[in-house]
């Protein structure tokens, strides 16, 4: 372990948009890992590279404008630099400055040098210098700051090898501060830049301004944005269905394979139906997460995301949200899990929390199979499409309404600010986008994956076992008789007598006022693994067949059910409306709760979210059922 001790620790420090992460990607390639900084949910990107026989550890500290922290992200950077005992305190700081924003970037660089930490000034986007500041004397800049200077164009990889060598050859010398640290810093910067012959304020790219004339235009801008949303929605919704089907098939085939090679025992069934199925439930989200983050990262990389926030901030603010909340809300229509991860781009704590809390109200794709079955069951032909549309609108209204209420109940810890740079537009770099997708997927599997597999095992245990020897009795009973659909009838009776079945019967008094019987109770409980499990559960209860359920056959079977001592259908319109509303509002997704837990750092918020959503679902369904029963 002594070797590890002597490794050089290097940290990247710079403003947001300085190209820090591009540089990190170029330095480390695939030798990187993501995690969280201890105790908080700020993403930590670390990695390593080899140069001249030495291994160098690199950490990409969150972008900041100064070492006086103003957000959780910035605090991480400030602590790592200020506190020598901090595990992330670097031996050497790479101060990344954007050549086209020298004046602003040097503010942070000066603070680092004043802390007397060995440093290298990395002048990124150096290709801009010929256009912006052709006379700049980089040697003078390097001498005045008393640190080595390396020019890079991180996006193209130019200068990265030179930077690696500079890191290897750095003597570890602390820079000497040649200015008066008590003088106002921007005056110091002006003096330094004047001495280094840097030119004055820089004009914007006119192309960027032209593009903004259209993209932030009240009409064209809005149309473009709606078109883009439609594309994102379409891709998450339908394109990802293809790889999701592959994953489903892969898990189905491999489960069958396991079943054929493993002996029929408790352990093999726990492995196949609990752990392996749970893992399938984690992997299945990856295509949606990848698609959503492909778009989110592209929009961030090009600089367009900042414009979307700029345009939509005003009306989202009325609900306690902000411009950047728009992406999670739209993404939530596909799946709340990646959408909640996307809320990380919101710097304000309260606005981010509110976004995370209300995003699951948006009708996600897992609700669709449930809607399809119930609409086919109770809604007359001709009104079915309209009902589906109404359910989606209901989700949007609930999200905004909940945000409005939370905004007036959650205390403000700090005043919300919306001061954000609108960077010049630039072409996205595919490697950056792909690495970001990889990081997000890895984080999801590592964080939420554990919880999802755990709950899925728990649900399996609950559905596969019953108290006492009830299961044995059923087994013996079916061994002695021979009827049609024997296996399915047995499955149904086993589920009825399992712990989950008993739980379903126990909660019957609670859900009776909503118009549900204990069978629906079982489906509500198993839906907690994922909402679409409702359909599969109904298939099991009504002995329709195996996992590849046919919605129409389940519907036909359910339509035949009648109320006790009557010929009226058991599943009538009031029942259907009530259950539709319940599924629209209720929090029935352990994956979402797991992600909310990892994103907010405690179980408090997922619990509140669960109570808020399920409470609203209960009250609304009660009202719908009771009122529509009267009519």
């Amino acid at each position, binding site marked *: 372990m002594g070797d590890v001790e002597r490794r050089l620790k290097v940290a990247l420090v710079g403003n947001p948009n300085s190209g820090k992460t591009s540089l990190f990607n170029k330095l480390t390639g695939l030798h990187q890992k993501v995690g969280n900084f201890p105790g908080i949910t700020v993403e930590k990107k670390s990695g390593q590279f080899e140069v001249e026989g030495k291994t160098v550890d690199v950490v990409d500290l969150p972008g900041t404008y*100064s070492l006086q922290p103003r957000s959780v992200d910035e605090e991480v950077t400030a602590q790592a630099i200020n506190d020598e005992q901090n595990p992330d305190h670097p031996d050497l700081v790479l101060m990344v400055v954007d050549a086209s924003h020298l004046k*602003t970037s040097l*503010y942070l660089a000066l603070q680092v040098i004043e802390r007397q930490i060995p440093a290298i000034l990395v002048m990124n986007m150096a290709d801009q210098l010929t256009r912006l500041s052709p006379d700049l004397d980089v040697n003078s800049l390097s001498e005045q700051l008393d640190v080595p200077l390396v020019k890079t164009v991180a996006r193209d990889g130019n200068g990265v090898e030179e930077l690696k060598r500079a890191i290897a050859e750095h003597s570890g010398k602390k820079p000497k501060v040649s200015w008066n640290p008590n003088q106002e810093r921007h005056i110091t910067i002006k003096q330094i830049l004047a001495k280094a012959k840097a030119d004055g*304020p820089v004009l*914007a790219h006119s192309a960027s301004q032209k593009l903004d004339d259209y993209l932030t235009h009240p009409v064209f801008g809005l149309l473009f944005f709606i078109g883009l949303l439609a594309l994102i929605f379409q891709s998450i919704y339908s394109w990802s269905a293809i790889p999701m089907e592959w994953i489903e098939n892969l898990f189905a085939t491999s489960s069958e394979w396991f079943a054929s090679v493993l002996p029929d025992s408790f352990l093999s069934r726990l492995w196949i139906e609990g752990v392996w199925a749970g893992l399938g439930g984690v992997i299945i989200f990856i295509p949606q997460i990848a698609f959503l983050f492909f778009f989110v990262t592209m929009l961030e990389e090009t600089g367009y995301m900042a414009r979307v926030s700029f345009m939509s901030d005003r009306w989202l603010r009325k609900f306690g949200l902000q411009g950047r909340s728009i992406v999670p809300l739209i993404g939530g229509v596909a799946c709340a899990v990646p959408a909640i991860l996307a809320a990380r781009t919101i710097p304000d704590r309260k606005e981010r929390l509110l976004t995370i809390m209300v995003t699951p109200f948006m009708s996600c794709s897992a609700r669709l199979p449930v809607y399809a079955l119930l609409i086919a069951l109770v809604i007359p032909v001709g009104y079915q499409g309209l009902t589906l549309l109404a359910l989606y609108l209901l989700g949007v209204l609930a999200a905004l309404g909940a945000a409005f209420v939370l905004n007036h109940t959650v205390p403000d810890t700090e005043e919300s600010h*919306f001061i*954000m*740079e*609108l960077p010049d537009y630039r072409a996205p770099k595919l490697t950056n986008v792909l690495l970001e997708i990889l990081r997000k997927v890895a984080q999801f599997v590592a964080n939420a994956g554990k919880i999802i597999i755990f709950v899925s095992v728990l649900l399996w245990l609950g559905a596969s076992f019953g108290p006492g020897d009830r299961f044995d009795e059923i087994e013996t009973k079916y061994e002695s008789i021979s009827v049609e659909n024997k296996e399915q009838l047995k499955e149904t009776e086993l589920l009825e007598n399992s712990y989950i079945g008993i739980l379903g019967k126990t909660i019957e008094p609670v859900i009776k006022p909503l118009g549900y019987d204990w069978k629906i109770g079982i489906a509500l409980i198993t839906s907690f693994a994922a909402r679409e499990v409702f359909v599969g559960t109904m298939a099991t209860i009504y002995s329709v067949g195996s996992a590849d359920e046919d919605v129409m056959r389940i519907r036909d079977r359910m339509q035949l059910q009648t109320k006790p001592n009557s010929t009226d259908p058991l599943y009538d319109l009031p029942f259907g409306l009530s259950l539709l509303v319940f599924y629209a509002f209720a929090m029935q997704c352990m994956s979402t709760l797991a992600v909310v837990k990892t994103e907010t750092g405690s179980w408090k918020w997922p619990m509140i979210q669960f109570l808020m959503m399920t409470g609203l679902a209960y009250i609304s369904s009660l009202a719908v059922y009771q009122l529509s029963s009267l009519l």
Partner: protein
Amino acid sequence: MTQVYFSESFPAIFELSLESFLTVTAKDLTRGQQAIVASFSDEKLAGFFAERGVVAGERLSVERIAPMGDPIAIRVADHLLCLRKREASAIIVRPEGV
């Protein structure tokens, strides 16, 4: 007693009202109008702005206004900053070429 009170407080009231009447902030600028940053009326925000290169003496102009009139985007120092009107009202400016 009354006279002392009046004579001491009158100029203060006068100054205060005159000042707030004459103060122009970044929020009051029209699109394309240029101005020089004079000072800040909120210390915490002043810190925010200083880190982003918005300090007294810098020239700024309102480049864009969001569809509903808020937030606004100002060109200042070497970048384009988007901020809400409430935050813009903390930047006291001297308009140019009025």
